[in-house]
C-alpha cells in the first residue's frame, strides 16, 4: 500500500522565504569579505614592516659575519663526503660540533641588533610563507596552476 503520509510530508505547507533574505545574506557576505580583506592588508603591512626592520637591522652585521666562510666551499664538501664514507659516525659528530660552533660564532658576530633583525626577518618570512600556503592548496585542489591563477 503506497504511503501517502510520505507524499504529504514532501509537500508540506511552508511559510515563504522573505523576499529580501538572499540580498541580506549577500550584503552580510560583502561585509565579511571587506573585513577579511582589511585584515589581510593589515597583516601584509605588518609583515612588510617587520621584514624591512629585520633586514635593516641585520644588514650591517651580516656583512661582518665570518663564520659563513667555513660553509659551502666545494672542496670542503668533497672532503666532508670522503670523511663520511671513511668513518660516518665521527664525520657526523664533527659536523654537528662545527655547526654548533658556527652558530655560536654567527650569533657573536651579529650582536643583539643583528640577532633581533634575523629573528624579525625569519619570523616575518615564515609567516608570509604560511599565509601563502592555503592559497597554494586551493589552487592545487581546484586544479589551477599557480602560473594560470595569476593571469
Amino acid at each position, binding site marked *: 500500500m503506497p504511503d*501517502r503520509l510520505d507524499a*504529504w510530508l514532501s509537500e508540506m*505547507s*511552508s511559510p515563504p522565504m522573505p523576499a529580501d533574505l538572499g540580498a541580506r545574506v*549577500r550584503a552580510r557576505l560583502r561585509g*565579511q569579505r571587506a573585513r577579511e580583506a582589511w585584515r589581510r592588508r593589515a597583516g601584509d603591512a605588518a609583515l612588510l614592516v617587520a621584514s624591512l626592520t629585520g633586514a635593516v637591522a641585520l644588514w650591517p652585521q651580516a656583512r661582518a659575519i665570518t663564520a659563513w666562510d667555513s660553509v659551502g666551499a666545494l672542496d670542503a664538501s668533497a672532503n666532508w663526503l670522503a670523511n663520511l664514507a671513511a668513518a660516518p659516525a665521527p664525520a657526523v659528530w664533527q659536523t654537528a660540533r662545527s655547526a654548533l660552533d658556527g652558530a655560536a660564532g654567527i650569533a657573536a658576530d651579529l650582536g643583539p641588533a643583528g640577532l633581533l633583525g634575523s629573528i624579525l626577518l625569519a619570523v616575518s618570512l615564515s609567516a608570509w610563507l604560511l599565509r601563502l600556503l592555503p592559497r597554494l*592548496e586551493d589552487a592545487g585542489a581546484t586544479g589551477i596552476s599557480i602560473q594560470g591563477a595569476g593571469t
Partner: protein
Amino acid sequence: MEQDDPSLVRQALAGDPSAFDRLVEIHTARLFRLVRRFAPDEGEAESLVQEAWLRAWQHRRRCSPDRPFFPWLASIATNLTRDAWRKRRPLDFADVGDEIDSAAADEVPLEARLEADEARARLANGVRGLRPEWRVVIALRYDGGLGYAEIAAVLGVPLNTVRTHLRRARAALRRFLEEENA
C-alpha cells in the same frame, strides 16, 4: 550559461566571490525552508540562514566540489541550530538501536479519511509539535530532500538511528492526525 554546484564551488575556492553569491541565490530558499521547519520562529530561521552562509564562506576550504554542496550547507545550519538548542535544552540524537517500531501504525488507512490539502496543513502543525530531534530529521528528509545516508552524515549518527527517528516521527504524526481527525 547555467552553472552547476561543483563548478561554482570550484570557482569560489579559487577566490571568486560572485560564484559563492550565485550559490547563495540557488540554495537560500531551500535552506530557509529546511531551517524554518525546525526553528521556533521566522526571525530565528532568518538569523540561522544568514549565519549558516557566513560560516560556509569562512570554512569554504572544507567544501569539496566532488561532494554535493547542499548537504554540506545543511550540516552547517543543523549544527548551528543544535548549538542554539543545546543552550536551552540538550538534544538526544543518541543511537536508539535497530529496534523496529510497530509497522502496523504505517498501515492504518487513515489517509482515506483526510483531504490531502488539509492533511498537509495539519502535518505542518504536527511537525512543529514533534520532539526537536525528530523535527530536524523530518526537515532534512522532506524539506531538504536529503537521503538517509546524507542525513546520517549531517547529524553524525548511524544510518539505523536516522531510520528509527524517521519511523517514530512518522508514527507520532500519524497519531497526531488521528487525534485531530477524531
